């Protein structure tokens, strides 16, 4: 585990302000998998990140995470294109905690607002982020690497290496 959390307070706030989230895994023969998330939570000590996904949309992704724990997580704010990718090796899926539903609802409202601000009609992001909370799954992992992924030649630079 790194000495200091990879995620500084500013990044923790960014991740929980209402960003577009995706999670990827890989299967036993290194075929990757991919699903859109509906929100995310950063632990109080900023050492763990939890992505919320809907089980029915995951295909084999949850089984693959249970098998090998390898995860890649991407968060982006559409209005600014600011994008961050986090990676980990200890991803575990479990039930959401009390309070997560309200957190995700707040994030969803903020993200819908951001998407409407860049020109999407509101019903579109609402449908994109909609679903039944009863099937929400919390995927928690310890980020061991973080990268800037805002489009451009600096994409892929490790976070803290000067480019953000």
């Amino acid at each position, binding site marked *: 585990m790194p000495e200091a959390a990879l995620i500084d307070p500013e990044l923790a706030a960014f991740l929980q302000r209402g960003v577009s989230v995706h999670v990827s895994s*890989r299967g036993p023969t*290194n075929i990757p998998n991919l699903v859109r998330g509906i929100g995310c939570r950063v632990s109080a000590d900023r050492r763990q990140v939890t992505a919320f996904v809907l089980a*029915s*949309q995951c295909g084999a992704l949850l089984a693959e995470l249970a098998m090998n724990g390898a995860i890649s997580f*991407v968060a982006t704010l559409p209005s600014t294109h600011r994008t961050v990718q986090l990676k980990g090796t200890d991803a575990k899926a479990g039930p959401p905690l009390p309070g997560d539903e309200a957190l995700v609802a707040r994030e969803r409202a903020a993200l819908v607002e951001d998407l409407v601000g860049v020109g999407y009609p509101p019903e579109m992001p609402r449908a994109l982020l909609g679903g039944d909370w009863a099937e929400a799954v919390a995927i928690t992992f310890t980020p061991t690497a973080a990268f800037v992924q805002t489009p451009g030649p600096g994409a*892929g630079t490790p976070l803290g290496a000067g480019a953000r």
Partner: protein
Amino acid sequence: MSPLTLDAIRRALDGSIPALIATCAPDGTPNCAYLSQVEYVDPAHVALSWQFFNKTRQNVLANPVARLLVVDSRTIARYRLVIRYLRTETAGPLFERMKAKLAGIASHTGMTGVFRLQGSDVYRVEAIERVPGPVLPAPPEDRNLLAAVRDCARRIGAIADLESLLDTALECIAEKFAVEHALVMLRDAGGGRLYTVASRGYADSGVGSEIPLGQGVIGVAARERTPIRIGYAQAEYAYGRAIREAALRDGIVLETEIPLPGLAESSSQLAVPIEAFGRLLGVLFVEAAEDQRFGYDDEDALVAVAGQLGAAIHVLQAAEGEDAPAAAAPGASPVAGPALQVRHFAENDSVFLGGDYLIKGVAGSIFHALVTDFLATGRTEFSNKELRLDPRVKLPDIGDNLEARLILLARRLDERDAGVRIEKSGRGRFRLAVSRVLELVEVG
């Protein structure tokens, strides 16, 4: 239920909601990234834009299987695809199509100068899966494109002369595709350029204006013989001064006196090559002020119409080259008013009527020959066939479309309205109609 096909989910590739790709490094570390472009190649392949040597690219070169997540922006239907990297193309039709589209995407997202296409990565689609989730009802279609194609084909097929053909095609496209602004450019067989022969929906027709092959949306569509479609306003493919200057550097002298017709606020542009029997005849171009006006289906439909148009141009051009008896000539039209000075510059065959520029190049040499004969012998009846063989008419190539040059010349004369016109007088024949005394002045 039968398996999903790529054709059936093409709308999800339009990029309105960005697609994502997951890849996996050889050590098993997954990677996930946004894509600025997913291009439909054919029912079994997509191409992704390679812009930077990033983790995605490193991964697929080592482990070619990737997963793609795309969303249909109208319904929010989501699809997950298993794709396998095959090859990278760095030139040719696919590359140019993606490069032009990317210029629009970059401009739309504030990434001009950042996004630059290095290559088109071609992937085979191995599986398509619908991801469950809420969907919106699909909005009703604005128009039925198959019915539009059918109607255009029927009307194009009923036309028996080239000039009406071009006008009818543009009229039909305007009506059936609800496109306000359209033009047809034909290829100059020798000079590496295209010239406007018909247009619709512009303040000035721009008939006679020229562009070099390979420049801008229309020029690239012609050179690569592939449709070029852009969904957002951008500057890279606009016909500015720079393109004209580049043409000059390449030794191509362009018609610059006649401005190219074009929308000042053009966002969506689609240029479709017009071909017949393996030859490029020209380009059909449509544009609109709104973003993302033309989709994959519009492109397919206009390609079908352009195919019909190409065959019709080819056949009618051949028919006009044949001699047929002339219609009875009308009595000589009354000649009145002061003399009209026709100045001809031998150097480039440019012609001025009074002080006004008319045309240059091939069309200029045709007009010069007609006026010379008219003044020498009073002759007003001419045939396309004799003109094609006339050494004074500088056709760049035997396969050049003389008939289209005559249409262009006739339109310029109509627009100038200076007292001299050319009128069709039968199949493959036309008449010089002169209503003023002409005075020919040779310059140079």
